[in-house]
Protein backbone atom coordinates (compact mmCIF):
# COMPACT_ATOMS: atom_id res chain seq x y z
CA UNK A 1 0.00 0.00 0.00
CA UNK A 2 1.10 3.62 -0.46
CA UNK A 3 1.30 3.92 3.34
CA UNK A 4 3.69 0.95 3.57
CA UNK A 5 5.77 2.23 0.66
CA UNK A 6 6.10 5.57 2.42
CA UNK A 7 7.18 3.97 5.66
CA UNK A 8 9.70 1.80 3.85
CA UNK A 9 11.17 4.79 2.02
CA UNK A 10 11.52 6.67 5.28
CA UNK A 11 13.51 3.84 6.81
CA UNK A 12 16.07 4.00 4.06
CA UNK A 13 19.31 5.88 4.40
CA UNK A 14 18.70 9.61 4.25
CA UNK A 15 19.59 12.96 5.82
CA UNK A 16 17.86 14.00 9.04
CA UNK A 17 17.77 17.40 10.76
CA UNK A 18 20.17 17.95 13.65
CA UNK A 19 20.47 21.47 15.02
CA UNK A 20 23.52 22.03 17.19
CA UNK A 21 22.91 24.86 19.64
CA UNK A 22 26.14 26.18 21.16
CA UNK A 23 24.29 27.55 24.15
CA UNK A 24 23.26 23.99 25.12
CA UNK A 25 26.89 23.35 26.05
CA UNK A 26 27.42 26.91 27.31
CA UNK A 27 29.82 27.73 24.53
CA UNK A 28 27.91 30.85 23.55
CA UNK A 29 30.20 32.96 25.75
CA UNK A 30 33.12 32.50 23.38
CA UNK A 31 31.42 31.64 20.09
CA UNK A 32 30.12 34.97 18.81
CA UNK A 33 28.41 33.62 15.70
CA UNK A 34 26.58 31.59 14.67
CA UNK A 35 24.54 30.77 17.80
CA UNK A 36 24.18 27.27 16.42
CA UNK A 37 23.88 25.56 13.09
CA UNK A 38 22.06 22.82 11.22
CA UNK A 39 24.58 19.96 11.11
CA UNK A 40 22.23 17.14 9.93
CA UNK A 41 23.02 13.45 10.31
CA UNK A 42 22.65 10.32 8.19
CA UNK A 43 20.55 7.42 9.29
CA UNK A 44 18.62 4.59 7.71
CA UNK A 45 18.83 1.21 6.08
CA UNK A 46 20.94 0.30 3.14
CA UNK A 47 18.79 -2.49 1.72
CA UNK A 48 19.52 -4.81 -1.16
CA UNK A 49 19.38 -3.76 -3.97
CA UNK A 50 20.88 -0.34 -3.38
CA UNK A 51 19.06 2.46 -5.13
CA UNK A 52 20.98 4.87 -7.34
CA UNK A 53 20.24 7.87 -5.16
CA UNK A 54 22.08 6.25 -2.24
CA UNK A 55 25.40 7.22 -3.85
CA UNK A 56 26.83 3.75 -3.29
CA UNK A 57 30.32 2.68 -4.14
CA UNK A 58 30.98 -0.53 -6.04
CA UNK A 59 32.30 -1.95 -2.79
CA UNK A 60 29.07 -1.09 -0.96
CA UNK A 61 27.06 -2.89 -3.66
CA UNK A 62 29.27 -5.98 -3.35
CA UNK A 63 29.09 -5.90 0.46
CA UNK A 64 25.30 -5.55 0.40
CA UNK A 65 25.06 -8.41 -2.07
CA UNK A 66 27.20 -10.64 0.17
CA UNK A 67 25.08 -9.63 3.18
CA UNK A 68 21.96 -10.84 1.37
CA UNK A 69 23.38 -14.37 1.35
CA UNK A 70 25.56 -14.25 4.47
CA UNK A 71 24.28 -12.11 7.34
CA UNK A 72 27.62 -12.40 9.16
CA UNK A 73 28.79 -9.73 6.78
CA UNK A 74 27.08 -6.44 7.71
CA UNK A 75 25.20 -4.25 5.28
CA UNK A 76 26.82 -1.14 3.92
CA UNK A 77 26.68 1.85 6.30
CA UNK A 78 24.58 4.97 5.89
CA UNK A 79 27.15 7.77 6.08
CA UNK A 80 27.70 11.34 4.88
CA UNK A 81 28.89 11.38 1.28
CA UNK A 82 29.04 15.13 0.89
CA UNK A 83 29.85 17.68 3.54
CA UNK A 84 30.24 21.45 3.56
CA UNK A 85 31.98 24.04 5.70
CA UNK A 86 30.72 26.67 8.11
CA UNK A 87 32.36 29.85 9.30
CA UNK A 88 32.63 30.63 12.97
CA UNK A 89 33.43 33.91 14.67
CA UNK A 90 34.83 33.43 18.14
CA UNK A 91 37.12 34.72 20.85
CA UNK A 92 40.15 32.49 21.35
CA UNK A 93 42.10 31.67 24.52
CA UNK A 94 43.96 34.99 24.19
CA UNK A 95 40.81 37.15 23.88
CA UNK A 96 41.55 37.67 20.18
CA UNK A 97 38.72 37.57 17.67
CA UNK A 98 38.98 34.89 15.01
CA UNK A 99 36.87 34.25 11.93
CA UNK A 100 37.57 30.75 10.67
CA UNK A 101 36.20 28.43 8.06
CA UNK A 102 35.77 24.87 9.34
CA UNK A 103 35.50 22.16 6.73
CA UNK A 104 33.15 19.17 6.82
CA UNK A 105 30.76 20.52 9.43
CA UNK A 106 27.44 20.14 7.60
CA UNK A 107 26.05 17.00 5.94
CA UNK A 108 24.93 17.80 2.42
CA UNK A 109 24.23 14.27 1.26
CA UNK A 110 24.02 10.75 2.65
CA UNK A 111 24.73 7.43 1.03
CA UNK A 112 25.50 3.77 1.59
CA UNK A 113 29.21 3.08 1.76
Amino acid at each position, binding site marked *: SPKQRGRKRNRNCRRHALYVDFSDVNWNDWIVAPPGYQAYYCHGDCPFPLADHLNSTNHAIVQTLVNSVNTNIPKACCVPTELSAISMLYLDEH*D*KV*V*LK*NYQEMVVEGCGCR
Partner: protein
Amino acid sequence: ERSHASLIPEEGKSRAPTGLPAAAHRQSHELLRDFETTLLHMFGLQRRPRPSRSAVVPQYLLDLYRLQSGEAEEAGAASATAGPHDAGFEYPERSTSRANTVRGFHHEEHLEQLPLEGSAAGESSSPSFRFLFNLSSIPEEELLSTAELRIYRERVDEEEEETGGDEDLHRINVYEILKAPHASQLITRLLDTRLVRHNSTRWESFDVSPAVLRWTRERLPNHGLAVEVLHVGGASSPHQGRHVRVSRSLHQKPGEDWGQLRPLLVTFGHDGKGHPLTRRAKR
Protein backbone atom coordinates in the same frame (compact mmCIF):
# COMPACT_ATOMS: atom_id res chain seq x y z
CA GLU B 1 28.00 30.67 37.22
CA ARG B 2 26.11 30.12 34.01
CA SER B 3 28.24 32.52 32.05
CA HIS B 4 31.32 30.47 32.78
CA ALA B 5 29.74 27.07 32.96
CA SER B 6 31.00 24.52 30.53
CA LEU B 7 30.19 21.21 29.03
CA ILE B 8 31.76 19.75 32.15
CA PRO B 9 29.83 20.22 35.40
CA GLU B 10 31.74 22.08 38.08
CA GLU B 11 33.61 19.80 40.49
CA GLY B 12 31.73 19.29 43.72
CA LYS B 13 28.62 20.98 42.40
CA SER B 14 27.39 18.17 40.25
CA ARG B 15 25.54 15.25 41.68
CA ALA B 16 25.74 11.72 40.45
CA PRO B 17 22.57 10.71 38.66
CA THR B 18 20.35 8.55 40.81
CA GLY B 19 21.43 4.95 40.84
CA LEU B 20 24.75 5.66 39.13
CA PRO B 21 27.71 4.46 41.18
CA ALA B 22 30.35 7.07 41.98
CA ALA B 23 32.95 5.29 39.83
CA ALA B 24 30.62 5.27 36.83
CA HIS B 25 29.85 8.95 37.39
CA ARG B 26 33.56 9.77 37.51
CA GLN B 27 34.06 7.79 34.33
CA SER B 28 31.22 9.68 32.68
CA HIS B 29 32.76 12.98 33.82
CA GLU B 30 36.11 12.01 32.34
CA LEU B 31 34.41 10.98 29.14
CA LEU B 32 32.77 14.39 28.90
CA ARG B 33 36.09 16.10 29.58
CA ASP B 34 37.76 14.08 26.80
CA PHE B 35 34.84 14.86 24.55
CA GLU B 36 35.17 18.59 25.16
CA THR B 37 38.96 18.46 24.66
CA THR B 38 38.49 16.66 21.34
CA LEU B 39 35.98 19.25 20.20
CA LEU B 40 38.23 22.14 21.21
CA HIS B 41 41.18 20.56 19.38
CA MET B 42 38.96 20.22 16.35
CA PHE B 43 38.47 23.98 16.53
CA GLY B 44 42.23 24.46 16.89
CA LEU B 45 42.08 25.47 20.55
CA GLN B 46 44.25 24.17 23.37
CA ARG B 47 41.74 24.97 26.09
CA ARG B 48 38.28 26.40 26.49
CA PRO B 49 38.37 30.18 25.91
CA ARG B 50 37.25 32.30 28.88
CA PRO B 51 36.62 35.71 27.35
CA SER B 52 37.31 38.65 29.62
CA ARG B 53 34.77 41.42 30.09
CA SER B 54 37.02 43.79 28.20
CA ALA B 55 37.02 41.65 25.06
CA VAL B 56 35.71 43.60 22.07
CA VAL B 57 34.46 42.03 18.86
CA PRO B 58 35.35 44.48 16.08
CA GLN B 59 32.46 45.42 13.85
CA TYR B 60 34.64 44.71 10.80
CA LEU B 61 34.95 41.04 11.70
CA LEU B 62 31.23 40.83 12.39
CA ASP B 63 30.55 42.37 8.97
CA LEU B 64 32.99 39.97 7.35
CA TYR B 65 31.27 37.03 9.02
CA ARG B 66 27.83 38.21 7.96
CA LEU B 67 28.85 38.74 4.36
CA GLN B 68 30.89 35.56 4.21
CA SER B 69 28.19 33.34 5.70
CA GLY B 70 25.44 34.88 3.59
CA GLU B 71 23.68 36.27 6.67
CA ALA B 72 23.85 39.83 5.35
CA GLU B 73 22.00 38.87 2.18
CA GLU B 74 19.38 37.06 4.21
CA ALA B 75 18.86 40.11 6.41
CA GLY B 76 18.14 42.08 3.26
CA ALA B 77 19.01 45.70 3.20
CA ALA B 78 22.20 45.53 5.20
CA SER B 79 22.89 49.12 4.30
CA ALA B 80 19.75 50.15 6.15
CA THR B 81 21.40 49.12 9.40
CA ALA B 82 24.79 50.45 8.48
CA GLY B 83 26.32 52.54 11.18
CA PRO B 84 29.48 54.60 11.08
CA HIS B 85 31.59 51.46 11.32
CA ASP B 86 30.23 50.17 8.04
CA ALA B 87 31.27 53.27 6.17
CA GLY B 88 33.36 52.30 3.19
CA PHE B 89 33.12 48.60 3.99
CA GLU B 90 34.32 46.50 1.10
CA TYR B 91 34.53 42.74 1.23
CA PRO B 92 38.25 41.88 0.93
CA GLU B 93 37.71 39.41 -1.89
CA ARG B 94 41.38 39.06 -2.78
CA SER B 95 42.58 38.51 0.78
CA THR B 96 39.85 36.05 1.73
CA SER B 97 40.23 34.06 -1.50
CA ARG B 98 43.47 32.62 -0.13
CA ALA B 99 42.61 32.46 3.57
CA ASN B 100 40.47 30.30 5.79
CA THR B 101 41.27 32.25 8.96
CA VAL B 102 40.94 35.95 9.68
CA ARG B 103 42.25 37.33 12.97
CA GLY B 104 41.71 40.75 14.49
CA PHE B 105 44.25 42.43 16.79
CA HIS B 106 44.07 45.62 18.78
CA HIS B 107 47.32 47.27 19.72
CA GLU B 108 48.79 46.78 23.17
CA GLU B 109 48.36 50.26 24.62
CA HIS B 110 50.16 49.44 27.85
CA LEU B 111 53.37 48.63 25.93
CA GLU B 112 53.43 51.83 23.91
CA GLN B 113 54.95 55.17 24.66
CA LEU B 114 53.37 58.54 24.24
CA PRO B 115 53.05 60.00 20.73
CA LEU B 116 56.49 60.47 19.22
CA GLU B 117 57.22 63.92 17.92
CA GLY B 118 58.39 63.93 14.34
CA SER B 119 60.19 60.64 14.60
CA ALA B 120 58.89 58.55 11.72
CA ALA B 121 58.87 61.30 9.13
CA GLY B 122 62.29 62.73 9.75
CA GLU B 123 61.94 66.52 9.82
CA SER B 124 58.17 66.56 10.20
CA SER B 125 56.70 68.04 13.34
CA SER B 126 53.54 65.91 13.15
CA PRO B 127 53.09 63.31 15.83
CA SER B 128 53.57 59.66 14.92
CA PHE B 129 51.78 56.99 16.86
CA ARG B 130 53.44 53.72 17.61
CA PHE B 131 51.30 50.59 17.64
CA LEU B 132 52.49 47.28 19.02
CA PHE B 133 50.49 44.21 18.10
CA ASN B 134 51.01 40.91 19.88
CA LEU B 135 50.71 38.31 17.14
CA SER B 136 51.95 35.39 19.26
CA SER B 137 48.51 33.75 19.24
CA ILE B 138 48.85 32.94 15.52
CA PRO B 139 49.65 29.23 15.32
CA GLU B 140 52.84 28.18 13.55
CA GLU B 141 50.96 26.10 11.00
CA GLU B 142 48.92 29.11 9.90
CA LEU B 143 50.51 30.68 6.84
CA LEU B 144 49.65 34.35 6.53
CA SER B 145 49.07 35.75 3.07
CA THR B 146 48.07 39.36 3.74
CA ALA B 147 47.55 41.79 6.59
CA GLU B 148 45.85 45.16 6.74
CA LEU B 149 45.86 47.97 9.24
CA ARG B 150 42.45 49.61 9.44
CA ILE B 151 42.23 53.18 10.67
CA TYR B 152 39.04 55.12 11.32
CA ARG B 153 38.66 58.68 10.20
CA GLU B 154 35.77 60.95 11.04
CA ARG B 155 34.28 63.74 8.98
CA VAL B 156 35.15 67.20 10.22
CA ASP B 157 31.97 69.21 10.86
CA GLU B 158 30.98 71.45 7.98
CA GLU B 159 30.51 74.57 10.12
CA GLU B 160 34.14 74.30 11.10
CA GLU B 161 35.28 73.38 7.62
CA GLU B 162 37.45 75.92 5.90
CA THR B 163 37.19 76.51 2.19
CA GLY B 164 40.22 76.16 0.01
CA GLY B 165 42.02 73.62 -2.11
CA ASP B 166 44.29 71.75 0.29
CA GLU B 167 42.65 72.72 3.57
CA ASP B 168 40.77 69.44 3.84
CA LEU B 169 43.60 67.15 2.77
CA HIS B 170 45.40 64.82 5.14
CA ARG B 171 48.19 62.42 4.35
CA ILE B 172 48.31 59.19 6.30
CA ASN B 173 51.64 57.36 6.31
CA VAL B 174 52.03 53.87 7.75
CA TYR B 175 55.53 52.66 8.58
CA GLU B 176 57.08 49.49 9.84
CA ILE B 177 59.40 50.19 12.75
CA LEU B 178 62.65 48.41 11.96
CA LYS B 179 64.46 49.56 15.08
CA ALA B 180 63.57 51.64 18.07
CA PRO B 181 66.90 52.67 19.61
CA HIS B 182 65.28 55.40 21.72
CA ALA B 183 61.72 56.30 22.63
CA SER B 184 62.01 59.44 20.55
CA GLN B 185 63.83 57.92 17.62
CA LEU B 186 62.52 55.28 15.27
CA ILE B 187 64.11 53.71 12.23
CA THR B 188 61.27 53.02 9.88
CA ARG B 189 60.33 52.11 6.35
CA LEU B 190 57.20 53.27 4.60
CA LEU B 191 54.64 50.53 3.99
CA ASP B 192 51.65 52.45 2.63
CA THR B 193 50.45 56.00 2.25
CA ARG B 194 47.21 57.74 1.28
CA LEU B 195 45.93 61.25 0.74
CA VAL B 196 42.41 61.70 2.12
CA ARG B 197 39.90 64.53 2.37
CA HIS B 198 38.36 65.12 5.76
CA ASN B 199 34.83 65.53 4.38
CA SER B 200 33.88 61.87 4.88
CA THR B 201 33.70 59.27 7.62
CA ARG B 202 35.10 55.86 6.81
CA TRP B 203 37.69 53.23 7.56
CA GLU B 204 40.92 53.27 5.59
CA SER B 205 42.73 50.02 4.99
CA PHE B 206 46.52 50.01 4.64
CA ASP B 207 48.53 47.08 3.38
CA VAL B 208 50.97 46.07 6.09
CA SER B 209 51.61 42.56 4.74
CA PRO B 210 55.39 43.00 4.26
CA ALA B 211 55.87 43.83 7.94
CA VAL B 212 53.54 41.17 9.33
CA LEU B 213 55.06 38.48 7.07
CA ARG B 214 58.53 39.45 8.30
CA TRP B 215 57.36 39.07 11.91
CA THR B 216 55.54 35.78 11.42
CA ARG B 217 57.17 33.87 8.55
CA GLU B 218 60.72 35.17 8.94
CA ARG B 219 60.43 35.49 12.75
CA LEU B 220 62.11 38.90 12.73
CA PRO B 221 61.62 41.19 15.75
CA ASN B 222 58.27 42.95 15.92
CA HIS B 223 58.87 46.59 16.88
CA GLY B 224 55.39 47.56 15.73
CA LEU B 225 53.95 50.01 13.27
CA ALA B 226 54.06 53.80 13.23
CA VAL B 227 51.22 55.88 11.87
CA GLU B 228 51.73 59.49 10.93
CA VAL B 229 48.93 61.87 10.01
CA LEU B 230 49.93 65.09 8.29
CA HIS B 231 47.50 67.87 7.54
CA VAL B 232 48.45 69.32 4.17
CA GLY B 233 47.47 72.75 5.50
CA GLY B 234 50.28 72.49 8.02
CA ALA B 235 50.73 71.47 11.63
CA SER B 236 49.23 74.75 12.82
CA SER B 237 45.94 74.01 11.07
CA PRO B 238 42.92 73.62 13.40
CA HIS B 239 42.22 70.30 11.66
CA GLN B 240 45.60 68.81 12.52
CA GLY B 241 45.07 65.73 14.66
CA ARG B 242 41.28 65.93 14.52
CA HIS B 243 40.30 63.77 11.57
CA VAL B 244 42.04 60.41 11.93
CA ARG B 245 41.33 58.37 15.05
CA VAL B 246 44.64 56.95 16.15
CA SER B 247 44.45 57.86 19.80
CA ARG B 248 41.99 57.25 22.60
CA SER B 249 42.02 60.71 24.07
CA LEU B 250 41.54 62.87 21.00
CA HIS B 251 38.18 64.61 20.98
CA GLN B 252 36.29 61.65 22.38
CA LYS B 253 32.58 62.32 22.29
CA PRO B 254 30.20 61.14 25.00
CA GLY B 255 29.00 57.62 24.32
CA GLU B 256 31.69 57.01 21.74
CA ASP B 257 33.13 53.51 21.85
CA TRP B 258 36.91 53.67 21.48
CA GLY B 259 36.95 49.84 21.36
CA GLN B 260 35.13 50.03 18.03
CA LEU B 261 37.02 53.02 16.63
CA ARG B 262 40.59 52.16 17.50
CA PRO B 263 43.04 50.92 14.86
CA LEU B 264 42.67 47.26 13.98
CA LEU B 265 45.23 44.91 12.51
CA VAL B 266 43.64 42.12 10.49
CA THR B 267 45.58 39.07 9.33
CA PHE B 268 44.47 36.64 6.63
CA GLY B 269 45.96 33.16 6.78
CA HIS B 270 45.45 29.53 5.93
CA ASP B 271 46.15 26.56 8.17
CA GLY B 272 46.20 24.10 5.29
CA LYS B 273 42.85 22.61 6.22
CA GLY B 274 39.88 23.11 3.97
CA HIS B 275 38.72 25.79 1.65
CA PRO B 276 39.20 29.56 1.82
CA LEU B 277 36.57 31.99 3.04
CA THR B 278 34.81 32.40 -0.26
CA ARG B 279 31.72 34.52 -0.08
CA ARG B 280 28.59 32.43 -0.34
CA ALA B 281 24.85 32.76 -0.28
CA LYS B 282 22.87 31.42 2.64
CA ARG B 283 21.33 28.07 1.83
